[in-house]
């Protein structure tokens, strides 16, 4: 199977922040000798280099669907990345200290895309329930001059208890099948015109739409997942347009008074 290796190598070596880096000993596949390699964790990809200064990774371990376990090995500070499936290889790694081992086990066990998505969905749900309440809707935008924050609602009420997230990944990659959710998740007034209240102050952007109630929990989870991303990205785009417009206005004002 072909992989976009050049892009992978670029991703591994570019200056985007890594989630963990450090030297680890990696046990060979056929022989039991350990080789010291420089490891870089970005997202759900664990790259390893021959040397810290190497320009290209030797290899990469796609972490989706893995579990991370401590090893009962002779080697000190060792741990294993394990995958489900009959002939899957287990990667045995060893850190150089107890602290390093713990740090790697934690960051690797939370590295999957699925895990990130679970946390995002839980936070998005929490945020919406804080703004909208689990039952009622919002009374509308408040004209808070100069403020981007929508008026918080129900602050005295503690957020809903959220389901406990797994700290170790399930073995199977349980990717949800998403619905495309058209229509309802479009932001009102997304045409990009600036909003001003009666005093000419900039009003906060519209609140994200209420999540539609779904009949089943599974359906609601899928809809929530689809809408959570569209909510964030549309908000992001909305804010972005306004910032771009403000900057344009500012530039024009700067140019104005000059002869």
């Amino acid at each position, binding site marked *: 199977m072909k992989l976009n290796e050049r892009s992978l190598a670029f991703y591994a070596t570019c200056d985007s922040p890594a989630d963990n880096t450090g030297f680890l000993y990696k046990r060979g596949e056929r022989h039991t000798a350990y080789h010291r390699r420089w490891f870089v964790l970005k*997202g759900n990809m664990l790259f390893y280099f021959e040397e810290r200064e190497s320009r290209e990774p030797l290899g990469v371990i796609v972490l989706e669907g893995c579990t991370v376990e401590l090893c009962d090995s002779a080697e000190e500070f060792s741990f294993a990345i394990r995958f489900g*499936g009959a002939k899957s290889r287990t990667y045995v790694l060893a850190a150089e200290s107890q602290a390093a081992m713990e740090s790697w086990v934690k960051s690797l066990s939370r590295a999957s895309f699925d895990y990130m998505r679970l*946390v*995002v969905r839980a936070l998005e749900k929490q945020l919406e329930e804080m703004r909208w309440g689990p039952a009622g809707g919002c009374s509308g935008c408040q004209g808070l001059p100069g403020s981007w924050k929508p008026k918080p609602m129900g602050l005295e009420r503690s957020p809903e208890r959220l389901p406990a997230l797994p700290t170790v990944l399930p073995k199977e990659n349980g990717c949800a099948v998403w619905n*495309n959710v058209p229509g309802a998740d479009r932001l009102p007034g997304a045409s990009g015109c600036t909003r001003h209240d009666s005093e000419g102050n900039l009003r906060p952007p519209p609140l994200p739409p209420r999540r539609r109630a779904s009949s089943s929990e599974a359906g609601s989870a899928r809809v929530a997942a689809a809408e959570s991303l569209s909510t964030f990205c549309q908000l992001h785009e909305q804010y972005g347009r306004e910032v771009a417009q403000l900057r344009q206005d500012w530039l024009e004002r700067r140019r104005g008074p000059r002869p």
Partner: protein
Amino acid sequence: MRYNERELLSLARQPAEKAAEILMRVPKKGSVLKKRLVKLVVNFLFYFRTDEAEPIGALLLEHCRITKEEDNVFSISFVEEPERKYCFECDSEEQCQEWIEALKRASLLHGPFLSYSYEFMRRSLIFYRNEIQKMTGKDPLEQYGISEEARFQLGTRKQ
């Protein structure tokens, strides 16, 4: 570059966020449009010959650009080589827009389009965490014991 092919193949068999038969052209000299089964699973785009169970290839969708080309056509390219484009010709303009929506999130602040990717998810998470913290004064990640996790930090992260 070595990689765990078995696990990637297993990932390719998982339920997709989006899958369809689309005409695809790879950025290789003399290559033509060919019908492929294209499947989006997490931040990978797999492509198969329509009658085969194993994908021909996979694209990791990080640091990539999704561009609308001519009618029914969109392309995927990567930031370090923007002229090397993977082109996809859909059956309809509607299908084309659906795929673009599924793959990209436009970012006016940062310029280039961000694809649906791990990096995008991370920014969403940091955004929501920040919003909730501003509203409640409490860090919502504390209850999961992941507040100190490097990947979820609000400020700029150091390598």
